[in-house]
């Protein structure tokens, strides 16, 4: 029986890998219900309750090592902030995340572009796929096929007839440039091919959002920002003076220090979440929410209980719950099957090991009386 406790750990690694690979390959066919928890509701409700035009600070303190857990929740929060027409000020404490999170901000802002699309409708998937191939090889001929013009804004969940908005449009139209077509998609009994004719940005840098970049100093930076945002960040990442960004109709209008922000959202992989609570929210009196890696989440629950933060997005679970709240199933949601299967396997292995331990404990070693 002792062999039960001596199973090579590499077999367990292989088992986990096989299960996750299978779940990832079959992720479109497996669906689990997602119900948001009260810590996630706390963040969502706090942001949803802000009036349009409120200035919000988003501190994205992570790097590629924590991308798996934090980028999906960062993106989901950004979508919510943009959708609510809040004035977003982004920053980071981590130099390694400087350009990395900038891409997330810029790409999320692009999701709110008004896309003028030509909609070509086909009765069969093959006809739609053939047309897509024609767009790539002979665009002039493809342009001659009869089309209807429609405006789509995936960030605002809007689409004009003949298509209806659905979350799939996020993955279909994201990153599709002018003149190019998205993959065919089926709606009703028809197959549509959308060709982007024009992209018109609705979110303007400097007016709707800005990115201050990185400054070192951690807690000292926070205290500095609490006294004067312009001293802490004399310019944004692109060299524009922050005093200029605080002008009439600009993103930092009415904001000169931390206390002027209506909400702070921290997406953090390290201790900066606690530092923001201790040196920021507690000291200068503004509400805040936290998104963090799963490892850090247990340490932050005391702050939630004492109402020092409005809510917590803890790890991948927090990310997929927030995606469900904003009705945009993205990367985190697609990983639910694999994550769930892995957890079930770990639970079964823990039970197995405990049973094996008890059984071995009861059995006597060879030669014993």
């Amino acid at each position, binding site marked *: 029986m002792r062999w039960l406790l001596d199973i090579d750990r590499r077999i367990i690694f292989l088992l986990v890998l096989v299960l996750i690979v299978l779940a*990832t390959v079959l992720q479109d066919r497996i669906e689990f219900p997602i119900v948001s928890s009260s810590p996630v509701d706390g963040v969502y409700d706090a942001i949803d309750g802000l009036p349009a035009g409120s200035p919000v600070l988003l501190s994205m303190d992570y790097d590629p090592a924590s991308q798996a857990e934090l980028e999906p929740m960062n993106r989901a929060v950004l979508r919510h902030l943009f959708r609510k027409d809040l004035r977003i000020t982004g920053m980071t404490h981590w130099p390694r995340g400087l350009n990395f999170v900038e891409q997330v901000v810029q790409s999320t802002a692009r999701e709110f572009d008004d896309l003028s699309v030509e909609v070509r409708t086909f009765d069969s998937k093959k006809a739609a796929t053939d047309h897509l191939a024609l767009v790539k090889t002979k665009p002039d001929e493809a342009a001659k096929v009869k089309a209807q013009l429609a405006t789509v804004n995936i960030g605002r969940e809007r689409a004009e007839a003949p298509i209806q908005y659905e979350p799939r449009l996020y993955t279909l139209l994201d990153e599709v440039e002018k003149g190019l077509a998205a993959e065919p998609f089926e709606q009703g009994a028809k197959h549509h091919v959308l060709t982007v004719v024009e992209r018109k940005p609705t979110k303007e840098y400097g007016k709707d959002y800005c990115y201050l970049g990185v400054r070192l100093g951690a807690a000292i930076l926070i205290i500095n920002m609490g006294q004067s945002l312009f001293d802490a960040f004399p310019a944004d990442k692109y060299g524009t003076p922050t005093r200029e960004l605080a002008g009439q109709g600009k993103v930092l209008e009415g904001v000169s220090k931390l206390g002027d922000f209506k909400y702070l959202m921290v997406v953090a992989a390290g201790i900066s979440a606690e530092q923001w609570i201790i040196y920021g929210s507690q000291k200068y009196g503004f509400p805040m929410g936290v998104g963090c890696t799963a490892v850090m989440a247990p340490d932050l629950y005391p702050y939630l209980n004492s109402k020092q933060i409005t809510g917590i997005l803890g790890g991948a679970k927090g990310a997929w719950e927030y995606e469900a709240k904003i009705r945009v199933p993205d990367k985190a949601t697609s990983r639910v099957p694999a994550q769930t299967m892995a957890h079930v396997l770990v639970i079964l292995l823990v039970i197995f090991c405990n049973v094996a331990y008890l059984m071995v404990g009861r059995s006597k070693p060879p030669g014993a009386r």
Partner: protein
Amino acid sequence: MATLDVPEKKGAPSIGDILFYVVLFNLFLWGSLFAFLHEDGHDLRVNGVFNYEALGVLIATGVTLALYSFLYKDNPFFKAAENLYVGVGLGYELVLVWYSSIKPDLYKPLIRYAVRYELWQEGAIKGQPDFWLLIPLFLGLLLLSRFIPRLSWLSRWAFAFYVGFGAGASIPNVIASNVLQQLKYTLVPIPFDAGFLAAFNTVVILLGVVSVLLYFFFSIEHRGAVGIVSKVGVWFLMICFGASFGYTVMGRMALLVQRVDFLIHGWLRL
């Protein structure tokens, strides 16, 4: 611990090792070929230009497989990938720290302003460097004296300033946030009107705080009533560690799931 391989010769890779490396290499080779050759795969050229993004995906895949090969055994591929990660990360961060912090906060106001004037630097006078910056520069250089054994004692001055400022800034804020605020919401009346769950939650939190604090109070012997309460504290600690461990498992699995997702959808384009 049972192993899968039988070493033939001390110091030489075993048959199992060789088989593993061959399988890994072939997985990378044939997987990459598949990734480029199948219908929805990567293109070698995009708009007439070489597809560097696909090259990046290949490198990322190679490094991912090399790092995960550690789960079988420590090996040169893992060591190479690990050192590559440390080196690239350090180099990248060094450059970023120079351009985001040292250059705008020290080099420009102290040295360049003697030559050029930047509009956004508040308080800087045209043609005059900001001499106050000499103090933090001097303290920073004192820190580096630790690398010279004869002069390492000088770094204590910088550390004293560092520790003193840090303690002065952190102690009142940490006490206000982590002690007083936490106490305020622990010692609250039981909210019977908010429902059974809220009331029960309040009682559990209070019980947990008191019992765990008593467990760590070693000035009296843990016997009798004190012993019982401290044992309750131990249970609370166990449950806390279990929850923390569960969250840690979730975090690590999420990282693995993301890597597998990259390999299947980013690399193989399935």
